[in-house]
């Protein structure tokens, strides 16, 4: 039991930090309040580092996924979470802080929500990390909920006004429905196997499959669980909320929504898929994954093609990328998951970069949303313009950007597992999606600047993050081999630990 806790040091640290942050946010000292986001980010980076160290812990310290797999996953979530925290700087309480600073009004803790916001952010990230160390269905359920529940609040808090509220309504209600669906699925899995322990379930499933075939109850349970968790991934058909919510939330929160729940969902899928058979999934699950992947990427791209709002557009893009992730998940533990993890990491960077650019811009204090608002960004904000170009190009999968490397690996893994048709469909989808990415690439460089120019947001962090990510996307592909090798090793070690 102690080993188990040893493995959860980062999460425990983050929980503590959440409390600390919530309190510090109420401090009367402005500099303390201002330190909250940085503290959050710093905590997350430390947590990431700690989590990475968990690779070497004994297997008992991790959950169902072997430590070699869960450690990097948790580190990745925490690391990118730290970046997301930086992007979220200046999202909440801006008006309040300005008023306080200008002396219009004194600081009133009752009205401040910065601390809560970052506390929620930390909680959600902790939830996502906990998904990776789930060892039973209860844990998985709780971790997933811990990921989701704070995000509902963050959507509302992140953006004052109707849009934030509307986004929150949709996100919350539909999320509750999806939770009910996978919860019911969990119940059926439990019913079919008689165990909550994922390891036991996996054993029962594999035994049963080799004897009389998997019973309907368990199968149905897996189907419902996967479909429901698909909501976190924005996998079709549970993707419909995504664009509305992404549009409604503030850009920094959208960046968060684009990564943390998705990472949780992806890891959740890994857990469930590994339970259902790992590299040799039941035919019905394969069919499901196949359908989900095709539907998700196609519907995402087709939806994105329609958009004039940059946030909705990237919402669609985010859906499409979930489709690609699903291909990797289907490709199975080992090469497939290694590619998936790498893709998730790269996607997290690209997605964060794109929304960081949006978060770094504003027009008279309100968000920049339309694609056309980004016209001529190269002239007004060169670094942001080029970052957007790099991120969009990378999302398109354009060589030699990082997105391309990730995509090639994903394709390789998928072909290796025999899903050639999926690769071809993904290739066609990439081509179809290229249109809107191309638009996002050419708009900052060639587009006409709007008559009502955009200006930089007061917080420097989103812009800094965008620039760094833009640069990373350009540079990392040339030095990514170590990272990829380690990812592959982690996946391979996990396969060995699973014993299949």
């Amino acid at each position: 039991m102690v080993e188990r806790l040893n493995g959860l040091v980062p999460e425990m640290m983050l929980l503590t930090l959440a409390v600390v942050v919530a309190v510090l946010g109420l401090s009367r000292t402005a500099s303390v309040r201002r330190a909250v986001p940085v503290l959050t980010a710093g905590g997350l980076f430390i947590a990431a580092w700690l989590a990475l160290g968990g690779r070497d812990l004994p297997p008992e310290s991790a959950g169902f996924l072997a430590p070699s797999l869960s450690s990097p996953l948790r580190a990745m979530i925490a690391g990118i979470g730290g970046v997301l925290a930086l992007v979220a700087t200046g999202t909440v309480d801006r008006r309040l802080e300005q008023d306080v600073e200008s002396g219009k009004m004194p600081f009133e803790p009752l009205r401040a929500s910065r601390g809560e916001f970052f506390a929620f952010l930390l909680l959600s990230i902790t939830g996502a990390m906990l998904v990776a160390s789930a060892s039973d269905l209860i844990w998985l359920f709780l971790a997933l909920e811990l990921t989701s529940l704070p995000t509902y609040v963050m959507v509302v808090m992140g953006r004052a006004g109707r849009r934030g509220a509307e986004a929150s309504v949709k996100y919350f209600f539909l999320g509750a429905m999806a939770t009910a669906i996978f919860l019911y699925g969990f119940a059926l899995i439990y019913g079919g196997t008689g165990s909550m322990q994922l390891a036991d379930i996996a054993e029962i499933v594999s035994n049963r499959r080799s004897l009389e075939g998997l019973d309907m109850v368990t199968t149905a349970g897996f189907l419902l669980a996967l479909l429901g968790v698909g909501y976190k991934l924005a996998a079709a058909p549970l993707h419909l909320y995504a664009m509305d919510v992404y549009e409604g939330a503030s850009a920094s929160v959208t960046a968060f929504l684009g990564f943390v729940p998705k990472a949780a969902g992806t890891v959740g899928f890994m857990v469930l898929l590994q339970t259902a058979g790992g590299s040799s999934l039941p035919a019905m699950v394969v069919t499901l994954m196949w359908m989900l992947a095709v539907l998700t990427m196609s519907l995402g791209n087709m939806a994105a093609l329609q958009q004039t709002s940059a946030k909705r557009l990237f919402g669609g893009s985010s859906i499409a990328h979930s489709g690609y992730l699903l291909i990797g998940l289907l490709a199975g533990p080992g090469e497939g998951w290694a590619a998936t993890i790498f893709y998730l990491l790269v996607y997290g960077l690209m997605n964060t970069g794109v929304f960081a650019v949006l978060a770094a811009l504003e027009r008279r204090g309100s968000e920049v949303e339309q694609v056309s608002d980004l016209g001529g960004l190269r002239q007004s904000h060169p670094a942001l313009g080029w970052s957007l170009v790099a991120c969009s190009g990378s999302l398109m999968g354009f060589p030699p950007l990082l997105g391309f490397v990730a995509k090639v690996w994903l394709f390789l893994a998928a072909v290796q597992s025999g899903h050639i048709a999926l690769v071809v469909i993904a290739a066609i989808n990439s081509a179809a999606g290229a249109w809107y990415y191309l638009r996002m690439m050419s708009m900052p460089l060639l587009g006409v600047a709007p008559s009502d120019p955009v200006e930089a947001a007061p917080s420097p962090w989103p812009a800094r993050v965008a620039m760094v990510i833009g640069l990373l996307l350009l540079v990392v592909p040339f030095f990514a081999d170590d990272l990829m090798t380690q990812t592959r090793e982690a996946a391979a070690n996990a396969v060995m630990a699973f014993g299949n």
Partner: protein
Amino acid sequence: MAELVVPEVFGQLALGHYLVLSAFLFAIGLAGFVTRRNMIVMFLCTELMFQAAVIALAAFGRFHLDLSGQVMVIFVLTIAAAEAALALGLVVLLFKRQPTLDAEAWSEMRDA
């Protein structure tokens, strides 16, 4: 002594009955969620779906003579409570902005 002939179905409550009940409950919840526009009712419908799962979990736990099902029930109830708090907070917030409980009033963002 004429034995009381009780139809088998009613003779004892088997797992199947609980599952059927749970399925019905889930279906009702889902249908309600899809059809009702009042946000409070919609939330209650999600609660209904949760309870359906809870019934199934409890029944399965009993069936397998395993406590973990019922342990989970407790957690689910906790989560449901948290969600309820969240939902009510949200509804209040929304009602302040727009004095209606109609979910359809919140459909500004969509594809053109």
